[in-house]
C-alpha cells in the first residue's frame, strides 16, 4: 500500500501526479528549485521541499538530495514523471535499494530500452519489424559516415540516450553529415550527459504512431490503444490524437498486438509506450519504447476513461491491473495541443517573460494540464512547454472544434507562445483530412501562414487597446519601460 509519494519532477507533470494522489487520498510531496518557488507544483502538493538553486544537476537531477528528502519525509514511493530521472536505471536502483517503490519499470527494462542498440536487436529477434539502421558501439565519425552511406540517405542521427528532439538531425546528403553529427553529439552530451548516437533510415513521409501499454507484476499485459503524434516541429510533437485517423480496425489490431508483444517479451512492468514509424504503404516499424508516462497520455485517458497515473501507482504497489483488455474501449476522439513558450514566426525559438493571464476554457470536454499559473515567470532554464490543452468529443471533428475554441480561451498573455500556430494547424484542410505526416509543417507551410486581419477586426483591436489604455496608461519611454521591467522581474524573488 502506497501512502506517500515524492514527485521528482516539476511543471505540469508534477501537478498531474499531485491531482491523482489527491483523488487517491495519497500524500503528495514535491521538490522545487528556488526559481520555481511560485510555480503550482511547489504549493499544490501536501508537502514541499526546496532543492536550492543552481544547475539541473544540483536540483531536479540531484539524486542524493532527492533520496535524502524522500527519507526525511517518509515517502514510500517516488514518481519520476517524464524526462529528468524517469529513465535513469541507476536512480531507479538507488530508490529501490533504499526500500522505496519506484513508480516505473525495472532498471533492466530501462537499460534495455534506453539504449536503442540492444532493444532493436531484441525486437528483430522476436520478429517485431524494425527500421534499418546502425546502433553499434563504434562511434568513430568516419565509421558512422560509412554506415550512413550503407543505409542510404536520407538518414536520421539520434542520441542513444534520450528523446524530445534533442541531439537529433535529419541528413539528406553526405556533405552535410559531419556538421550534423558534431551538433547532434554536442546536444546529446549537454542534454543526457551521453554523446552516443545511432543512425537510421529516415522515412520522409511517415506517421508517428505509438501504443500505450501496461504491465503488472502478475504477468498481465494490456494496451490502451494508439496515439498518433505526427505533427512535429524540430522533431518534437506539438499535436497528438487518438484514435489515429490512419488506422483501419485491422491495422489497429495488428499494431496494438505488436506493442503488447514487445511488453510481454521484456516482462515490462508499469506504463510504457511503444513507438512505431508508419509509412505510406501502411507498414509499421518498431522505433523505440519509452519506459515512462508520456507527455501526451491525457488523450488516452479521455478516450478510454482510465486514469493512467492511478494505474501506475496501483501497479507499483504490487496490485494486478484492475481491468481486462476487453473492458478497454475507445469512446470518441481526443486531441492534445502543446503550448510552448516559443515564436513560430522566429524558427520556433524559445521565448521568456511573465505569464500575466492564462485564461480558462468554458467548453465542455476540454482539459488544461498546466505547469504554470498567473504571474509565473518563464525562464530559459527549463523546457519551454507551458501547458497542454486536450479536447474530447464524440467525433474527430467535434474534438478538433472544441480544441480550437479552447485555445481561444487561454491566451497565456505575457509570453509569446505557439498558440496561434496550433490553431492554424488544427483548422487547416490537410489536418482536417487526416493528412498527417511528420513532414506536415514543412509540407504545408503555405497553408499554415498567418492571415492578415480585416479592417473591422483591426478596428476592434484598436478599440480594445484604447479602452484598456484609458484605465491603464501605457507608454514605454526609457524610464517607464525600465520600471515596468523591474516590477516584472521583482516577482522572481518574492
Amino acid at each position: 500500500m502506497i501512502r506517500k509519494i515524492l514527485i521528482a519532477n516539476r511543471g505540469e507533470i508534477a501537478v498531474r501526479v499531485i491531482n491523482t494522489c489527491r483523488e487517491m487520498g495519497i500524500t503528495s510531496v514535491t521538490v522545487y528549485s528556488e526559481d520555481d518557488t511560485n510555480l503550482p507544483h511547489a504549493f499544490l502538493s501536501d508537502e514541499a521541499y526546496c532543492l536550492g538553486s543552481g544547475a539541473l544537476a544540483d536540483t531536479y537531477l540531484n539524486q542524493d538530495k532527492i533520496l535524502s528528502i524522500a527519507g526525511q519525509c517518509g515517502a514510500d514511493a517516488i514518481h519520476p514523471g517524464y524526462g529528468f530521472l524517469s529513465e535513469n536505471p541507476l536512480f531507479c536502483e538507488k530508490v529501490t535499494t533504499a526500500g522505496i517503490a519506484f513508480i516505473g519499470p525495472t532498471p533492466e527494462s530501462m537499460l534495455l530500452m534506453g539504449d536503442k542498440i540492444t532493444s532493436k536487436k531484441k525486437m528483430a529477434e522476436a520478429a517485431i519489424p524494425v527500421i534499418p539502421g546502425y546502433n553499434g558501439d563504434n562511434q568513430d565519425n568516419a565509421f558512422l559516415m560509412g554506415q550512413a552511406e550503407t543505409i542510404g540517405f536520407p538518414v536520421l542521427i539520434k542520441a542513444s540516450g534520450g528523446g524530445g528532439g534533442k541531439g537529433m538531425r535529419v541528413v539528406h546528403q553526405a556533405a552535410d553529415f559531419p556538421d550534423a553529427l558534431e551538433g547532434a553529439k554536442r546536444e546529446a552530451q549537454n542534454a543526457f550527459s551521453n554523446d552516443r548516437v545511432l543512425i537510421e533510415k529516415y522515412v520522409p513521409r511517415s506517421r508517428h504512431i505509438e501504443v500505450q501499454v501496461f504491465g503488472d507484476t502478475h504477468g498481465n499485459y494490456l494496451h490502451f490503444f494508439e496515439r498518433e503524434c505526427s505533427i512535429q516541429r524540430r522533431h518534437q510533437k506539438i499535436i497528438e490524437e487518438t484514435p489515429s485517423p490512419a488506422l483501419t480496425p485491422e491495422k489497429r489490431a495488428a499494431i496494438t498486438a505488436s506493442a503488447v508483444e514487445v511488453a510481454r517479451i521484456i516482462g515490462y512492468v508499469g506504463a510504457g509506450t511503444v513507438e512505431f514509424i508508419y509509412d505510406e504503404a501502411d507498414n509499421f516499424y518498431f522505433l523505440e519504447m519509452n519506459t515512462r508516462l508520456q507527455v501526451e497520455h491525457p488523450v488516452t485517458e479521455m478516450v478510454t476513461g482510465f486514469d493512467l497515473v492511478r494505474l501506475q501507482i496501483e501497479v507499483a504497489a504490487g496490485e494486478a491491473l484492475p481491468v481486462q483488455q476487453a473492458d478497454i474501449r475507445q469512446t470518441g476522439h481526443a486531441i492534445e495541443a502543446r503550448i510552448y513558450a516559443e515564436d513560430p514566426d522566429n524558427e520556433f525559438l524559445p521565448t521568456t517573460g511573465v505569464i500575466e493571464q492564462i485564461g480558462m476554457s468554458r467548453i465542455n470536454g476540454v482539459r488544461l494540464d498546466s505547469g504554470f499559473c498567473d504571474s509565473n515567470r518563464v525562464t530559459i532554464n527549463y523546457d519551454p512547454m507551458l501547458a497542454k490543452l486536450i479536447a474530447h468529443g464524440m467525433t474527430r471533428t467535434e474534438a478538433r472544434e472544441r480544441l480550437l475554441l479552447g485555445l481561444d480561451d487561454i491566451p497565456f498573455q505575457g509570453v509569446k507562445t505557439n498558440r496561434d500556430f496550433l490553431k492554424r494547424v488544427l483548422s487547416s484542410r490537410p489536418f482536417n483530412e487526416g493528412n498527417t505526416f511528420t513532414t506536415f509543417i514543412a509540407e504545408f507551410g503555405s497553408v499554415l501562414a498567418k492571415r492578415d486581419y480585416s479592417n473591422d477586426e483591426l478596428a476592434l483591436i484598436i478599440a480594445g487597446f484604447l479602452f484598456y489604455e484609458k484605465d491603464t496608461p501605457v507608454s514605454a519611454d526609457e524610464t517607464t519601460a525600465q520600471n515596468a521591467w523591474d516590477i516584472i522581474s521583482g516577482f522572481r524573488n518574492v
Partner: protein
Amino acid sequence: MKRELIINGKTYQVDAVNMDGHELSFVFEGKDYVFKQRKNKSRLVITNDHLNHVVRCSRTARNVQVNIGPLEAFVELPGAVRAKKSGGGSGSLKSSMPGNIFKIFVTEGSLVKKGDKILILEAMKMEHTMTANTDGRLTKIFYKEGDQVEGDVELAAITPEKDAE
C-alpha cells in the same frame, strides 16, 4: 485626435479618436466606428451595436497583448517604438532568442562573410547558431561566453567594408 498604432508590426493611422465617458468613436480606413464599454472590476467588455466582445489585455515589457475572441494582437508601446528605431543598424547581429552565449567563434576585428558562424546561443537545452547577416568587419562583440542575454538585443556589430573579401 489622430493616433498612430503599431499592431503586429504594422503601422496604422486612426483618425478622429474621441473618448466620451464609456463611449469611443474613431475613423479607421475611412469607416466610422463607435464602441461602448461595460466594465466590472478587471473585466472589460466592449460592444458595438449589440455585439459583445470580451477584451483581455496584458502589458509586457514592449507591448500590450490584446486578445478578443480568436483575435490576438501585440500593440507596441509608443516609447518602445522609438527605442527600437534608434537601435542597431543593418549590420548588427541581434539575439534570436533569450539564452546563454554558449560559444563564440570569431574575435573582434576579424573579417566575416555573410553566413559565417558567429556564435551559438543556448536556451532550454537547445542550441541556435547565429550567422553573419552581411559581409564586413566584426567591430564589436558585446558579450562573452557564458553571458545570459534577452531576446532581440544586439550581440555584435558588423561594419560592411568595400574590401571585405
